[in-house]
């Protein structure tokens, strides 16, 4: 199936439409909340939460014996929340730093979850097959009711974010100060964290425990490159996330046997890569271009200043001098001399150069400016 065929199918095929819609919504909500996680420097929290959700899925299955996705996700939600609040507890009650707490909870919960999964697989219950899809996710299992759940949660999340925008923003920037203004920072914190947990749990079925944190971080990291405004960043992250979902699904559906979750994550990774390189203000490419340009300008100025110093000693500023003299000056190249000629600052006759009146003026202004900024 090629891409054009796929696009036709999205509008006609029910299953494909459901999956595309689901991954788009998922990408949007995780991108949005991921911005908060990234700005709070809690990037790894998402990874810990998603891994911590695994035992919840297994236990929910053991109790109910059914593979209903909503039941399993409630199990995931509960164990994800327990994991999160244990992390917070460890950080506030012990001397351990948050990276240690995150690593500890992540591996303990994941280990326990894997143990339960293997235990379930040994059981005679025929229903148990396919529970391990939660490790890497399987978008194909998305049904309409799953998409509705995602849409409703995303809607609530959006509403809460709009209502408490001011509170979220100030807490992210300066938590101590927020406290002195009389806000209960714990309430805001719990609100943000709970929504992050909720978004992660929603994505487990599609992207899986192992890769879920990328959905949270990649769109946010990409969005940060393009803007210096929090609202634009959150919006862009949602957009990048949604597009990752749509493109990822399209690629995996048009190429046989590519599993959707990893493809979505890779597409999000491409967004990050492009953003890191091509962002106008923070991107590597433009920064390098600016760097080179600045250095060239400085070389030019230095050469001009050197000529000015020599010319100053003569009554006639356009007194010709040998090009050889310039060799004493480090940073001089034929290129810079050529540029000065193009700018009509310098005249070349044979192997002699002379400053023009214009060049002399420019150089003396350069000097004055330099002296002013020095003061």
């Amino acid at each position, binding site marked *: 199936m090629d891409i054009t065929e796929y696009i036709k199918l999205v509008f006609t095929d029910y299953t494909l439409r459901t999956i595309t819609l689901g991954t788009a919504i998922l990408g949007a909500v995780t991108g949005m909340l991921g911005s908060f996680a990234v700005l709070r420097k809690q990037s790894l929290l998402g990874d810990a939460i998603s891994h911590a959700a695994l035992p919840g899925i297994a236990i929910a299955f053991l109790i109910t014996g059914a593979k209903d996705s909503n039941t399993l996700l409630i199990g995931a939600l509960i164990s994800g929340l327990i994991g999160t609040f244990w992390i917070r507890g460890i950080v506030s009650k012990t001397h351990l730093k948050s990276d240690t707490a995150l690593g500890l909870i992540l591996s303990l919960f994941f280990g326990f979850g894997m143990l339960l999964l293997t235990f379930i697989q040994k059981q005679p219950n025929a229903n148990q097959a396919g529970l391990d899809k939660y490790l890497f996710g399987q978008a194909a299992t998305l049904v309409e009711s799953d998409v509705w759940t995602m849409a409703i949660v995303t809607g609530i999340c959006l509403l809460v974010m709009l209502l408490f925008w001011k509170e979220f923003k100030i807490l992210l*920037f300066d938590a101590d100060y927020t*406290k*002195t203004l009389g*806000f209960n920072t714990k309430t805001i914190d719990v609100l943000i964290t709970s929504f992050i947990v909720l978004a992660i749990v929603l994505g487990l079925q599609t992207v899986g425990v192992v890769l879920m944190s990328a959905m949270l971080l990649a769109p946010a990291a990409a969005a*940060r490159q393009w803007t*210096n405004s929090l609202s634009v960043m959150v919006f862009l992250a949602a957009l990048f996330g949604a597009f990752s979902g749509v493109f990822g699904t399209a690629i995996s559906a048009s190429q046989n046997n590519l599993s959707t979750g990893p493809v979505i994550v890779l597409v999000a990774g491409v967004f990050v890569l492009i953003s890191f390189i091509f962002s106008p203000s923070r991107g590597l490419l433009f920064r390098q271009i600016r760097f080179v340009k600045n250095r060239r300008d400085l070389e030019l100025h230095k050469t001009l200043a050197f000529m000015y110093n020599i010319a100053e000693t003569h009554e006639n500023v356009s007194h010709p001098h040998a090009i050889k003299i310039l060799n004493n000056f480090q940073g001089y190249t034929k290129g810079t001399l050529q540029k000065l000629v193009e700018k009509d600052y310098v005249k070349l006759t044979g192997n002699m150069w002379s400053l023009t009146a214009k060049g002399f003026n420019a150089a003396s202004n350069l000097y004055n400016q330099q002296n002013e900024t020095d003061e």
Partner: protein
Amino acid sequence: MSKIAVKVDDLTVAYNYKPVLWDIDLEIPEGVLMAIVGPNGAGKSTLIKSILGILKPIAGSVSIYGKPYDKQRQKVAYVPQKGSVDWDFPTTALDVVMMGTYGSLGWIKRPGQKEKKAALEALEKVGMLSFKSRQISQLSGGQQQRIFLARALVQNAAIYFMDEPFQGVDASTEIAIINILKALRKAGKTVIVVHHDLQTVPEYFDWVTFLNVKKIATGPVKDIFNDDNLTKTYGINYKVSIQE
């Protein structure tokens, strides 16, 4: 004697087992410009943070104009250490100053024209109006400090707590800041500053508290800023030449 703006009783704070502040009693009269001085680890920042409820003390109480601090938050503004936040946060100078209005707005309500006007006025007072749309990471250290000061000014409080506002700023910013602090005192406000540079204490402040886990002394600079108290606070035989 004028009214007491801030009263601290038996305040004790500890991280783990080691007390950082021990049994502090402190009365700060209204309208003073007070420096809190003491060596590193003396608990200067901790004192401010516990008064403001950022840190939870083991014992003790704080009252602002005779009432518990919780009921008087609107009267108090805080300027944290510049280094306590991430300046790469995606926001502008004006936005940060606007945050000073959030407390009086309360939950959910968004800042409007009135708040924006107040923020612009505060930016003007600290000489940063032309930087209002600047991304905060592109501000110099001194400019960042002025933004923090403007954010506190917007709160229009009666009492200002500042944690090392002169740290890492150049001479011209230091003068600009101290002029604002003196203007605040002139307007009848109480200003409490964690300060490091002992040389400038007599010139800048009229009130001083010596702190080293315990309170060593507190009172007018002209009466108590002497070698005796400095030695008691800093432990070594401290000889600072005070201009007579």
